[in-house]
């Protein structure tokens, strides 16, 4: 009896990519960004502790609108969780993750838009970058986070577009995801420290 066996592949090469270069590069970048935000929050905390009583407040309101921002925070955290789910879907069937990635992107966009709306409200109340130390810190820290969120949204949007076209590489998606997780992860720290 003559057996017919398929051609066997060669033994795998000794050197293989364990972690995609895009993820490793993004991790280094995120590490630098974590230290950037840590420096800002550190300066904020020390300045707030040394502020004279009654000076650490808005011109018209006693505190920042923490309750309204809680909704934005929930949207951002939900977006991060959806992206974790999208990653699982992508591993099983790449095409099935497109809708979840889009939903995560939309929640992230809602966060950025609502933050912008909040800024307009605060500006109308007289809180500007020059009005007080609190105003300076608020706009620098929250603004820096907003810029990162916009950058991450662009990356995630490109990932979604490539996913739809069928040209998305796993490395690109992982890189975009890593950055988005950073944006989602650093926000509760900023929210808890700056708004309360």
């Amino acid at each position, binding site marked *: 009896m003559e057996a017919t*066996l398929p051609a*066997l*592949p060669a033994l*795998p090469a000794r050197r293989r990519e364990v972690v995609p270069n895009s993820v490793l590069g993004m991790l280094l970048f995120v590490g630098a960004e974590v230290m950037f935000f*840590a420096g800002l929050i*550190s300066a904020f*905390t020390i300045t707030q*502790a*040394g502020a004279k009583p009654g000076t650490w407040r808005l011109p018209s309101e006693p505190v920042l609108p923490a309750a309204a921002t809680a909704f934005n925070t929930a949207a951002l955290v939900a977006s991060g969780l959806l992206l974790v789910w999208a990653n699982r879907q992508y591993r099983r069937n790449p095409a099935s993750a497109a809708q979840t990635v889009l939903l995560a992107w939309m929640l992230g966009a809602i966060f950025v838009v609502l933050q912008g709306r909040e800024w307009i409200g605060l500006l109308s109340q007289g809180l500007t970058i020059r009005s007080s130390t609190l105003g300076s810190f608020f706009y620098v820290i929250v603004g820096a986070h907003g810029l990162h969120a916009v950058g991450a949204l662009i990356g995630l949007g490109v990932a979604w577009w490539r996913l739809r076209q069928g040209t998305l590489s796993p490395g690109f998606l992982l890189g975009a995801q890593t950055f988005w997780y950073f944006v989602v992860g650093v926000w509760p720290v900023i929210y808890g420290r700056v708004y309360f």
Partner: protein
Amino acid sequence: MRVVVATVILVLAPRVALACPACALVGVNENSTAYVSMTIMLMALPLGMIIGIAIWLYRSVRRAEAGAQVCERVIRSARRQRACFGPE
């Protein structure tokens, strides 16, 4: 006289122009806590990140090596079968 004025200025100026404006607040009770906690945070954060990434890389490499060993076993077993049954 000039020497005296210059000496007085040199002695008094450092007190007025502190190198670190925030350091003037050191020693106030609330501030001491903030300084200590933020110093600890800024020291621990990079170390924590480096250790975390190192552990994650180590685990990823070990997982990949375990997967590669399974592949090699499957291929060797198929080669042995092929040697027994002969070529196509």
